């Protein structure tokens, strides 16, 4: 069997990253004094798969390191070693380290973290130390089997590692795996180890089915063919892989080698021989049993992504192959693929089918010699169908890019634990709405602002346990992350039950920084908004956490770049609530079409408050040439868009045109436009990719008639016009 293994690397990286995330979240859940065996098992399995995969694909550094982890976890799992907080700490650091290693493999860069030898040593020491539970006998021989990297090349391959996952119906055909193992014994010494069986829920359990998965080590010189003969009758229905290895220590790293790739390699190598349906059926039955296990373990990430993962594999291959070809652009490798559930793909195929039918129908009408009343009606119907199918298709395609927000949420338990410990604060993190889906790009870009906000809540929001007790609160503070859909947007809330914003301190600071006049009084709400001002930080000392120069203004700007908004509500002594609203996708925008002169622009609908005609008595001209309008009790600067973009317009004066009031970082600004046209969803095309970045323009779109319309970037336009703060101008 000749397979280029590098084509599976990307899948390996992805599953490793998922595995590490699962490890991390399970470790954080772990009660060190009474560890739940299933949790330990999950952690072990993750380490085990990473080890197996890395050995298979030749990432020996990862394999050797995970071997240490696996050995430690195995001993804990078997009860040969008692878990200590130090172990948890070491394992968490290992997760970080492995992330770095995987990252550098993905980027094809050198990995030189000094922590690696340190941690390796720590792990080796831990393995060498003897802290078996009183009840069981230590087995020093086992634990000293740490790998020696240099042996890998020099060792002689003298044994076979066989990964044998029995087909579910194997017993029902009268086959007995034990007899097969006995047969193997004729060829050499055999070591059989049974992997933890993945039993389904009791109701789904079939006592006649086989749920077992073995790993065998056969010390023999026999060729693979002679081993294959043993499994000849069952090779089609079982997952079997053979790996040559040496029986000395490093060989162990290979033991599980094919474990993780089984499904992939297996699916490919067997696809020819076995009917696709059989393979698929098998994977589905596996994933059902997996999902049951996982839901018991309550791993959010695995629970949401893994049940479909096995079934998805065949679909993933195409992008994988492409990715391999584009290995040169390895930098962006991480964004090159996305896991999509088969359900979504099926929906898409269904839509395309509908579209093809509609197209055929329209084609038929087009071929008619003359168009009469009847065919016109048909044409109209067809076009309506086409419109509806296109919309559905668009939605389905968007769905593909959607990922559950748990991908972002999952990093927070660790973050909160670490920072809480560092600050000596007791914190409970509550995650809600983890299944809420949003666009992959939005998801990736919202993580940093969220991290900043959570850090902020931990650092500035939550009080120390004593202070909380003194205020009559429980010792443990709570931070809640909540996500939900609301009116075509995704809303993410970050809520803490801490002290709330200190308005006096903020006001004082703002006065020091000259953001607020010395005698100026502001309502509480406006004071809170001050924290979003550039350069504003109230931290007395710049701590390691928040307040390191990256202020809330950056958070706000990042969210604005995603066409989102952030709101803050805070009550002294009770806590703060940050509400982030984001569009579901970055690719499509709900826009208001406006006309200025001959040009049509699109303004994001979310940023528009209102549009109105302003009589001349409400227009004030400033000495610097800027103009303000009085709207109710506010003064708003008005930007003459045509002037900024340097073209002609019908309305050159404010009184002649329409003023569209838009939001710019919670400040209202007016845009002078000639006419409001339709509201419609527009597909955003990047100008930067295709042309160059233009201040005041965030992108372009193609309208129904084929013309190009530019999308206005309100914040950019405000900067362009040189209006930084309406209040300053008003003052």
């Amino acid at each position, binding site marked *: 069997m000749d397979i280029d293994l590098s084509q599976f690397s990307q899948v390996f990286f992805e599953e490793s990253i998922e595995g590490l995330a699962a490890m991390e979240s399970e470790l954080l859940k772990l009660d060190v004094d009474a560890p739940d065996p299933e949790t330990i098992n999950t952690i072990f399995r993750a380490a085990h798969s990473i080890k197996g995969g890395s050995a298979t694909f030749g990432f020996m550094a990862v394999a050797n390191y995970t071997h240490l982890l696996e050995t430690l976890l195995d001993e804990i799992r078997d009860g040969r070693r008692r878990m200590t907080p130090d172990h948890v700490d070491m394992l968490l650091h290992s997760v970080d380290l492995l992330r770095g290693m995987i990252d550098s493999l993905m980027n094809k860069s050198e990995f030189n973290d000094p922590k690696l030898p340190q941690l390796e040593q720590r792990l080796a020491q831990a393995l060498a130390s003897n802290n078996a539970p009183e009840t069981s006998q230590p087995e020093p021989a086992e634990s000293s089997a740490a790998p020696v990297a240099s042996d890998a090349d020099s060792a002689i391959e003298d044994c076979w590692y066989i990964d044998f996952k029995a087909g579910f119906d194997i017993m029902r*055909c*009268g*086959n*007995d795996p034990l007899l097969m193992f*006995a*047969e193997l014994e004729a060829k050499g010494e055999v070591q059989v180890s049974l992997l933890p069986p993945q039993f389904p829920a009791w109701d789904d359990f079939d006592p006649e089915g086989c749920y077992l998965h073995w790993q065998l080590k056969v010390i023999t010189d026999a060729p693979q063919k002679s081993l294959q003969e043993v499994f000849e*009758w069952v090779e089609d229905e079982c997952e079997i892989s053979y790996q040559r290895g040496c029986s000395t220590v490093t060989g162990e790293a290979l033991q599980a080698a094919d474990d993780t790739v089984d499904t992939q390699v297996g699916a490919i190598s067997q696809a020819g021989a076995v009917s696709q349906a059989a393979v698929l059926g098998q994977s589905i039955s596996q994933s059902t049993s997996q999902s049951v296990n996982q839901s018991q373990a309550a791993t959010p990430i695995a629970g949401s992504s893994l049940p479909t993962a096995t079934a998805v594999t065949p679909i993933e291959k195409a992008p994988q192959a492409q990715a391999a070809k584009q290995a040169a652009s390895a930098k962006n490798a991480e964004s090159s693929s996305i896991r999509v559930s088969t359900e979504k793909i099926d929906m898409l195929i269904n839509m395309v089918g509908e579209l093809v039918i509609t197209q055929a129908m329209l084609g038929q009408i087009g071929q008619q010699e003359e168009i009469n009343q009847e065919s016109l009606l048909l044409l109209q119907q067809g076009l309506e169908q086409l419109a509806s199918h296109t919309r559905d298709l668009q939605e389905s395609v968007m769905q593909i890019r959607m990922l559950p927000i748990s991908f972002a949420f999952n990093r927070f338990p660790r973050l909160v634990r670490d920072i809480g410990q560092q600050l000596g604060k007791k914190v409970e993190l509550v995650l809600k709405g983890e299944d809420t889906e949003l666009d992959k790009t939005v998801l990736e870009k919202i993580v940093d602002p969220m991290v900043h906000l959570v850090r902020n809540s931990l650092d500035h929001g939550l009080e120390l346990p004593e202070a909380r007790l003194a205020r009559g609160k429980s010792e443990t503070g709570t931070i809640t992350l909540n996500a939900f859909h609301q009116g075509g947007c995704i809303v993410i809330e970050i809520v803490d039950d801490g002290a709330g914003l200190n308005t006096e301190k903020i006001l004082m600071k703002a006065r020091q920084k000259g953001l607020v006049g010395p005698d100026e009084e502001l309502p509480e709400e406006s004071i809170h908004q001050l924290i979003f001002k550039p350069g504003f930080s109230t931290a007395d000392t710049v701590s390691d956490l928040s307040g390191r120069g990256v202020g809330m203004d950056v958070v706000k700007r990042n969210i604005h770049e995603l066409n989102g908004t952030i709101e803050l509500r805070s009550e002294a002594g009770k806590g703060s609530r940050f509400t982030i609203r984001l569009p579901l996708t970055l690719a499509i925008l709900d826009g208001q079409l406006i006309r200025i002169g001959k040009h049509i622009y699109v303004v994001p609908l979310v940023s528009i408050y209102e549009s109105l005609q302003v009589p001349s008595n409400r227009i004030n001209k400033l000495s610097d040439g800027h103009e303000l309008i009085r709207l109710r009790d506010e003064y708003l600067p008005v930007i003459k868009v045509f002037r900024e973009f340097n073209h002609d317009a019908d309305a050159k004066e404010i009184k002649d045109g329409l003023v569209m009031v838009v939001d710019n970082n919670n400040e209202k600004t007016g845009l002078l436009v000639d006419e409001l046209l339709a509201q419609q969803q527009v597909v955003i095309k990047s100008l930067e990719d295709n042309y160059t970045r233009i201040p005041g323009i965030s992108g372009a779109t193609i309208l129904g008639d084929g013309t190009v319309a530019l999308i206005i970037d309100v914040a950019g336009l405000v900067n362009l016009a040189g209006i930084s703060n309406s209040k300053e101008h008003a003052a």
Partner: protein
Amino acid sequence: MKKILAVDDSASMRQMVGFTLKTAGFDVTEACNGDEALKVAQTGQFDLVISDVNMPVMDGITLIRNLRTLPAYKFTPLLMLTTESGGDKKQEGRAAGATGWIVKPFNPEQLLATVRKVLG
């Protein structure tokens, strides 16, 4: 002593199989087609059934399918005697519940090795 049911429409084959297995210490019963074998099988519990595929009245695959429906033969090893060219038959046999196959032509050593493989 393990009981084996040998099914083949060819008498010479039945003899060869029967002789080899008896010599090796097995208790062998013979049947000349699937229908007969199905009836014989229900008179007692056999530890192994070795059946030819192409037979009149009831072929080997139908026999295997029928045997698998009987509680007594749910997990019993059922072997097919098949020809090298019969790749499709192997698949069909497996789908019917066959444990494995012995490819014709075979020598007694090969037969015994295969039988020992399933009987331990």
